[in-house]
């Protein structure tokens, strides 16, 4: 599927349809009565939504539920979405809200980026981390990916969540997605933003890292 194709080297926003635009096309067709397009939309966007839910540190089972719920909400509220270009952002926001609801119900700590009234310090994010993976699994990564994994894990939780989702969309969509994730304007796109800058600085300072 084209969602797996690398976006590197894309010269401009208009060169290829972004994920947002492809989603808008599928959603428009669906709303015009071509119901099969909902299946396309599900195939297209579920990976982003999965990583959104997991980035909120839900366990795999809860993440599945939350992603399914978001899709059902979309069908229920399809007519309320004015701009088809907004469908990706709408789903990501819905997943985030649902994840927040599930975490709160289960009495687990809610990610700090959903609690702006609390000062976001490193200690606040050190709660039950259900979204992490079995360290044994890390062994399946390539050598370069393992290095990257260690540097990513050293980032603040909200940066990890942001980069995880951004990595699954196309460059022109970064700013809108970052907003849907509740991140401040300028977190990523059009500039690099703090999260990616931190990761890049860490990698460049790592003499064993080579970006290949």
């Amino acid at each position, binding site marked *: 599927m084209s969602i797996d194709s690398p976006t590197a080297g894309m010269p401009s926003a208009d060169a290829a349809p972004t994920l947002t635009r492809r989603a808008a096309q599928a959603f428009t067709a669906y709303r015009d009565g071509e119901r099969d397009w909902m299946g396309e939309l599900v195939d297209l966007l579920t990976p982003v939504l999965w990583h959104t839910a997991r980035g909120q540190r839900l366990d795999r089972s809860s993440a599945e539920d939350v992603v399914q719920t978001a899709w059902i909400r979309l069908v229920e509220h399809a007519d309320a979405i004015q701009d088809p270009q907004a469908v990706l952002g709408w789903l990501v926001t819905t997943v985030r809200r649902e994840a927040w609801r599930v975490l709160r119900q289960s009495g687990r700590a809610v990610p700090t980026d959903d609690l702006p009234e609390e000062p976001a310090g490193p200690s606040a994010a050190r709660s039950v981390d259900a979204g992490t993976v079995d360290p044994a699994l890390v062994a399946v990564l390539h050598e370069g990916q393992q290095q990257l994994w260690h540097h990513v894990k050293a980032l603040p939780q909200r940066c990890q969540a942001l980069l995880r989702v951004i990595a699954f969309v196309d460059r022109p969509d970064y700013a809108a997605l970052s907003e849907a994730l509740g991140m401040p304007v300028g977190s990523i796109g059009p500039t*690099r933003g703090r999260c990616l800058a931190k990761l890049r600085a860490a990698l460049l300072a790592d003499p064993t890292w080579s970006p290949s």
Partner: protein
Amino acid sequence: MNPDESTLASEPLDTLDEQLLLTVRNMHARLDPVPSGLTERIKFELTLAALHAEIAELQQLSPAGVRGDETTYAPTQSVTFTTSRLSLMVTVTAPSDDLLEEPAAQGTITVDGWVTIGGTVVELRVGDLSLTVTADEHGRFVLEGVPHGPGRFVLRPPGEGERPIITPSVEL
């Protein structure tokens, strides 16, 4: 954030960033993949929601078929689904009965069915394919040329305002 990071943060995204994000993406896809079958389960849930359908229960699955003798090699499956309103029985036959040397996975299958309400419109969905037939007054129907794969039935009993019934997916 140190000054180097501040500078880095205010620069426009470049190709190295895209390369980094691609690596991040591959890492997550490898480490924490979307569960297999999740998109299919979502599509099913959405179909249910769109149809306002009732889900039938899978009652019985007999992969051995009804004829117990060992000479009957062709894979036959009988399945029964029930809801409070009706029952559906289907028998799946691979037409390899007299062509034993041909792998059964090749070609198509025949679905013989009986539904307890005559005149019910029976739709079988296998992959992207949808086959529809109307059961006769006794509730009997036959679907031929059905491809292998996971399939589910959508039943629309005759009569105004009847909710459709949808079955769980079974391997055909």
